């Protein structure tokens, strides 16, 4: 009984501040609200309204016209672009930096983005993609791509790409250090026998490195999926989801529903959706921990 002292404080706090509110969010998605009060059970009305809303999915614009495509679609675009890009870049950098002296210094430089507040990351995205003051546009002009040089965060067709690419810049450090650790686990003799067989660098990479870092890839994909569910700070600061919702994401859209439009039912529905996605992902996590 005295052993309860060990778990009770932690569990109480987590139950009151995390579990109970999470359950309430799910319940809130099924009720009509008046201000901050749930008034009556509404079934799936909030969800019907949400799925019919253009800020959630916009079939009139996706995929034939430029964004806004709706927050859900934007998150999916994020998954499709951000996850493969960070994984490939992370693996590439991990392999490259293992081969050069000062590799750990270089790794720290790439990792910096993971250490600083994401609001600063968002500010930097805005800064580097700015039409006048931004380094990205200066580089684009230098290589003759003047047509692409402008304030990316201010145009509906480039706002989403700018926050996604900026996020890749911030977040690749994570994939890189996971892959770096994964590479250390590959037995050296595998590479030795490959080089005895005269295998090319590319072939060795494809046949040995990629299959051997599969566990690392799984971690990178899972953790980055979790990250994509959470994207908020960066977009809030870089574009506020704009222009005209062209770069909004679920977490931000839900925030606007709740704290700008005071539509707490809709917001709860969005957040429940995110929670269910997180629960699905956590099933994979559990398998890893056990």
């Amino acid at each position: 009984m005295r052993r309860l002292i060990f778990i009770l404080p932690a569990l109480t706090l987590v139950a009151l501040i995390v579990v109970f509110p999470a359950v309430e969010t799910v319940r809130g998605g099924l009720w009509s609200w008046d201000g901050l009060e749930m008034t009556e059970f509404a079934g799936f009305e909030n969800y019907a309204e949400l799925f019919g809303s253009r800020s959630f999915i916009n079939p009139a614009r996706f995929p034939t016209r430029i964004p806004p495509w709706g927050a859900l679609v934007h998150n999916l675009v994020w998954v499709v672009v951000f996850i493969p890009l960070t994984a490939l870049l992370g693996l590439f950098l991990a392999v490259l930096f293992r081969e050069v002296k000062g590799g750990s210094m270089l790794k720290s430089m790439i990792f910096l983005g993971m250490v600083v507040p994401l609001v600063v990351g968002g500010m930097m995205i805005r800064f580097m993609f700015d039409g006048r003051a931004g380094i990205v546009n200066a580089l684009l002009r230098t290589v003759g791509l003047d047509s692409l040089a402008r304030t990316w965060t201010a145009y509906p067709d480039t706002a989403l790409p700018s926050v996604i690419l900026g996020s890749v810049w911030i977040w690749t450090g994570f994939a890189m250090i996971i892959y770096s650790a994964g590479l250390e686990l590959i037995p050296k003799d595998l590479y030795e026998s490959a080089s005895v067989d005269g295998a090319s660098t590319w072939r060795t990479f494809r046949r040995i490195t990629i299959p051997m870092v599969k566990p690392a890839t799984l971690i990178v994909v899972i953790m980055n999926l979790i990250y994509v569910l959470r994207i908020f700070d960066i977009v809030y600061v870089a574009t506020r989801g704009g222009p005209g919702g062209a770069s909004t994401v679920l977490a931000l859209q839900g925030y606007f529903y709740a704290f700008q439009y005071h539509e707490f039912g809709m917001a709860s529905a969005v957040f429940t959706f995110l929670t269910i996605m997180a629960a699905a992902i956590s099933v994979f996590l559990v398998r890893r921990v056990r």
Partner: protein
Amino acid sequence: MMRKPRIILYAVAWLIGLLWVLPFLGVFVSSLRPFREVVDGWWRLEEFTLTLDAFIRAWNHPSAPVGPALLNSVYIAVPATLLTIMFASLAAYAFARFKFRLKSPLFFLLILIMAMPGQSIIIPLFAYMVDLGLLDTRLGLILVHTAWGIPWAVLFLRNFFLSVPIDLEESARVDGASDLTVFRRIVLPIALPAIVSIAVLQFVWVWNDFLFALILIQSPGKKVITQTIPMIQGRFDIPWSVLSAASVLSMIVPLLIFVFLQRYYIKGVMAGAIKG
């Protein structure tokens, strides 16, 4: 295994590294130069003035003063880190060493929470904080950060405890030491490196958090550092120098922690990812 000339490899690696930190360099340079010199590109050197003006203006910003905000962030992050360590280390020890009912479902719950975005809880949290009178109080935000940090810290420390041989604890128990004594005298000292990892990561996470602070803290005098950055806006132009100075000030603490405690930091990130 690489047969390409080394020199190319080095050049490519360092070129990528330098390109990668270019935006950081831009922010540092812009924070030290006047607006008119950076608005057409911080890399231009036709005119070059070094000044701390932007820092002074960010520090005393009329609507988003960075100086007090830094202190407010300390007031939140220090207690939220200490409380998390206290609660999580106790619970983690129980998960590693004791048998109790509902252990596996509780364990699953902790993992589920780790995957959840903060958005899963903010609406009811906001409502309850209003009811409890904890909205716009430091205590409210500290408690939320503590609870939010516990699941991850418990899993991390549990894995650490499981990797420690149990012999020492058992012989102490044979000598009549209570669970709490064993925990305090034997387990905690051994776990110190793991606890440092947790402290480092939790502190940086709380410091960097924007969402919970945005929802729960409203008084201008209590706002934390991450809240001030989106509030720094110009009337016509974006004040890049002042914004950069504010960003630099907000980054200093996490950057110093990363530079000096990198080993613990990376260990925490890795363990958080690999072991769960």
